[in-house]
Each structure stands twice: as C-alpha cells, then as structure tokens.
C-alpha cells in the first residue's frame, strides 16, 4: 500500500513539475524557468546529500563519463515539455511523451544498447505501444 502511494505521488509530482515550469515560463521565459527550477532543486538535493552522509556511495569515477552527462539532457527535456504543454495541453503532451519514452526503452532493449541485456522483440510490447498511439488518436478525434 505504501509503495502504491509513493508511486502515485511520484506521478503527480512529475506532472506538477511540467505544469509549474510552463506557468513560470509564461512570466520569465522558458530557459530562465528551466535554470531556476534546477538550480533550486540542485541546492535542495545537495543539502540533503550533506545530511545523508553516505560518502562511500559517491563513486562517480567508476561510471563511464558518458553516463554522467544525463543531466545535460534536461535542458532540452524541460524546453520541449513546456513548449508542448503550451501548444497542445498537458494530457496530450504527457501521452506523447510517454509513448516516446517507452518506445526508446523498447529500442534500447531489443538492440542491447548501452550494455543493457539484449531482449528478443516481443509482441506484447509492440501491441502496448500501438494501444498507446491509438489512445492519443482518440484524444484528438
């Protein structure tokens, strides 16, 4: 039950984040909004990290440098998310975003990119994505 509540809240926060960024963008600009929310998020996370004090668990040197750059993608993610919400609304944006997200996961899995264990192309995942696309078309009928 607690797990369900956490997962449900996580989804609520992710959507809220997109909505808040769109709202802030209206007033100060999209890059400004992306910079400020991540700066304050960074400071908060850093403060928590200092309280948690698990210094053994900070071995960034063992990670391939490419994987350390994930955060840099967020600039384009937030810009895209905000632009899409302003153009098409929240529901359509999140729906299309999730399709692309799962589509990419699927591609990575069947090709075994980034050292992920290679999976055989499976019909259910394909059907799942087709259903999601059908759902988006229904949204826009």
């Amino acid at each position: 039950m607690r797990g369900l509540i956490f997962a449900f809240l996580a989804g609520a926060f992710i959507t809220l984040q997109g909505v808040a960024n769109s709202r802030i963008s209206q007033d100060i600009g999209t890059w400004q909004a992306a910079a400020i929310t991540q700066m304050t998020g960074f400071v908060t996370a850093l403060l928590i990290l200092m309280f948690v004090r698990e210094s053994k668990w900070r071995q960034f040197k063992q990670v391939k440098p490419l994987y350390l750059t994930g955060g840099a993608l967020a600039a384009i993610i937030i810009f895209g998310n905000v632009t899409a919400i302003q153009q098409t609304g929240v529901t359509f944006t999140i729906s299309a975003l999730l399709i692309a997200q799962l589509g990419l996961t699927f591609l990575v899995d069947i090709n075994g990119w980034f050292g992920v264990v290679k999976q055989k192309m499976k019909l259910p995942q394909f059907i799942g994505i087709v259903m999601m696309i059908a759902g988006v078309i229904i949204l826009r009928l």
Partner: protein
Amino acid sequence: MLLGLFWALLAGSLVGLQNIYNSKVNEHANSWATTTLVLGLGFLTSFLFGLIFEGANMFRLEHMQMWFWFSGIIGVGVVVCMVNGIKLLGPTYAVSIVMTSQLIFALLWDSLGWFGLQQVPFTWKQLVGVLVIVAGIFVFKFGGLRQPSKSVAQGK
C-alpha cells in the same frame, strides 16, 4: 499541434535516454548524489542555452514570484517517491503506476486549468483516450513479463 507533438516526442525520447544514464550512475552512487549531479548539470546546460538564445535577458527576473524559487523542490519530491515506490513495488509495477498517475493528473490539470494555464475542457473522449493509453502501458510493462520483478516480494 505538430510542433507540440514534435517537442513532446523529443522530450520523451530524451527522458528514456536520461533514465538509462542515471540508472548507470545510480549503480555506483546513492540516489541523492545522483540527483545532485543530474540537477547541477541540468542547471548549467539550461543556463548556457539561455545565454546563447536570450543573452542578457537571462538576468532579467523582474516578473519572478516568490513561489518560483521553491518549484525546484518538486523535483526532490519526485526522487523520494520514485526511489521508495520502486523499492517497495519493484520497477515494473512502480513505473506503470507512476505513468498512470502522470496521465490522471494531466487530465485533472487540463480540465481545471489551474495556475493560469489554458483550460482544456474535460470530455468523455479524453477519458477513454487516457484509459486506452493506460491499458497500453500495462500491456507493455507486464506483457510476457520481460523483466523479472524480483523486489516485489521483498518489499512487503
């Protein structure tokens, strides 16, 4: 609408990519160290893009409202809830619920038009669309159970 679709698809693909990168970092660092790194880099990149495209406008913040300074804390809430949700439910189950919840709240925000965003009136067609998408998510995540959900049993 096509422009919005393009940006949403690009953002979604990058979220998928970022999740893979971040989980690789998470294998060697705790989730707060990972989050700090990810948000710090995100800030630097956004600031840099802003300087390139907007120049000195990046420093003009006269329309700032008080709560804008606290919106970043939402991201911290995301991390806490994701980490605990996955720990308790296992990744397959947790991510399916997270995505469903994202869509439910998206529909809610569109219908209510909170925060001065443009309101998109609720229709039954939209609800049906979202339900079909949610069904698709569950078929994708649980179809053939490609990932062993080993941590499900441990959580309870």
